[in-house]
C-alpha cells in the first residue's frame, strides 16, 4: 500500500496511507490530500496509481508542482520521491513505512513569491540548462571537486582517491575506489565500495541507493550534486 508523508516546512504533519487508485491534491476539503495554504490551488495536482506505477499530474496549477526539485507537468513517481507544492513536501513511499507581495488570482490561489519558491524555480531553470548542454545526467562539483560539471554517460563511474578513477575525491582514509555510480536502464544508483561512513547520500551513510534529482553525494571531503537528465 502506498504511503504519502506530508511535511510542512520540514515538519512531518500527516501520514496518508491509501488504497485509492486516484488521489487529488488541493486546497479545498473535497480533495484526498488537503493542503490548506494560499500557495496551493483548489485542484492542484493528482496522483494516479496503475498496475505498476504511480504518476503525478499537475493540474496547470498557479505555483507549480515539483518532483525532486524539478518542475513537472506529469511524472512517474518512484519510492522516496519528494513532491513540492508551495511550502509543503509530500514524500511518496511505495510501501507503508514504520515510521510577500502576493496576488490573488481568480480561484483565490496566491502567486507564491517567497524566497523558497524563487529558489525552486531558479534551481529548476539552471538544472534544465545543464541537462540540455550535456544531453543527459550530470554530476556537479560542489565542494573539493576538480570539475564543475561531469557528464554521467558511462555504465559505471568510479569515485575515489586512486589516479585512474573517473571522479577524484579528497579526504583521509578514502579507498582508491570509494564508490561508484552505476547506470542501468537510465536509472542511476550510488554504491559504496570503501569505508562505510565515507560515502554519504544527503548526509546519511549509504551502501547502495537509487539516485534522485538533486541528491547530494559526499565522498570524504568532496561533495557532488546529482542532476538527472530527462528520460
Amino acid at each position, binding site marked *: 500500500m502506498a504511503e504519502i508523508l506530508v511535511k510542512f516546512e520540514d515538519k*512531518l504533519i500527516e501520514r496518508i496511507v491509501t488504497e485509492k487508485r486516484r488521489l487529488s491534491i488541493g*486546497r*479545498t*476539503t473535497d480533495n484526498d490530500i488537503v493542503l490548506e495554504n494560499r500557495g496551493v490551488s483548489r485542484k492542484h495536482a493528482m496522483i494516479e496509481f496503475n498496475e505498476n506505477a504511480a504518476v503525478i499530474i499537475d493540474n496547470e496549477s498557479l505555483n507549480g508542482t515539483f518532483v525532486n526539485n524539478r518542475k513537472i507537468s506529469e511524472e512517474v513517481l518512484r519510492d522516496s520521491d519528494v513532491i513540492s507544492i508551495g511550502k509543503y513536501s509530500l514524500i511518496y513511499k511505495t510501501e507503508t513505512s514504520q515510521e510577500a507581495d502576493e496576488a490573488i488570482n481568480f480561484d483565490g490561489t496566491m502567486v507564491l513569491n517567497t524566497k523558497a519558491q524563487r529558489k525552486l524555480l531558479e534551481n529548476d531553470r539552471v538544472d534544465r540548462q545543464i541537462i540540455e548542454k550535456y544531453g543527459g545526467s550530470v554530476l556537479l562539483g560542489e565542494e573539493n571537486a576538480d570539475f564543475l560539471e561531469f557528464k554521467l554517460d558511462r555504465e559505471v563511474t568510479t569515485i575515489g582517491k586512486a589516479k585512474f578513477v573517473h571522479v577524484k575525491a579528497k579526504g583521509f582514509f578514502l579507498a582508491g575506489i570509494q564508490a561508484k555510480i552505476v547506470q542501468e536502464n537510465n536509472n542511476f544508483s550510488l554504491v559504496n565500495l570503501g569505508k562505510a561512513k565515507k560515502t554519504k547520500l544527503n548526509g546519511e551513510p549509504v551502501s547502495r541507493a537509487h539516485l534522485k534529482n538533486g541528491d547530494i553525494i559526499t565522498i570524504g571531503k568532496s561533495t557532488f550534486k546529482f542532476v538527472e537528465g530527462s528520460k
Partner: protein
Amino acid sequence: MRIALVSDVHANLEALEAVLNHIESENTDTICSLGDVVGYGSDPSACLELVDKICQIKLIGNHDYYALGRESSNDYSPLAKISTEWTKKTLTDKDVSILDSFTMEEVIEGIHLVHASPFKPQEFHYILTHKDAADAFPNCKTNLCFMGHTHVPVIFNEKPGQPPRQRVGHDFVPQPDCKYLINVGSVGQPRDNDPRASYVVYDTETRDVCYHRIEYDIKSAQRKMEEAELPEMLIERLAVGK
C-alpha cells in the same frame, strides 16, 4: 482582527515574557489566554499578574481550578498534585481573586475558546485522538475552536461524509465547509519534543492560522524551579519539550 492565543503558561515567566515580546511584533489586536497560567512552574504570581494585565480574555484551566481549591472529576498526576500544593501556598489573596475572575469558555469573533474540550469544559477532557475529537466536535459553538491542555500543537478537522483528520500543528487557512479543533500548544511546558514555547495568531479577515515557536531562557526557568525545590522531572522536561 488579529488574535493571539496563548495557553498553558504554567508559571513559566521566562517563556511567557519571550512570547509576549514576540506577540508585540505580530501586530495583534487582542491576546487570549486559554488557561493553566499556574501549576508546574516557579512564578505563578508574576505570570498571573502579567496575563491579567495583558490578556483581554482569560480562561480557567484545570491547574488554575485546583489552585483555587476546586475539584474536578478528572484525576490528575502525582506531579501535578505536588506542584498544585506548592502553588496554593505561594498565591496571594490578589492572585486568588485574579484566578477567580477567569471564565470557563468564550466565543469571540466567530471562534470558540476553551481550555481543554468544548465537551463539558468544566471536566477538562483531553483531546488526544480522533475519537476524542469526534466526541468534542458536536459541542463546538463555531467552526473554529481553539484550545490547549495537552501541550501538543495539533489540528483536528471534521467534514460530514469524510473521515476525520489529525495533523501536527502548522500554518494553514481553515476551509469554510469544515470544523476545526486547533490546539495552540503550550507556552511554558511544551510536550511535542520541541522545547520552544508555542502560541498561535489567528487573523479573522484572512483566516490565516499561524503557529509560532519561540526560544526562551530555559536554563533560568529551570534554575528558579530548582530554588523552589519543585520536582526534578518537571525541571528536566522543559529542556527536552516532553
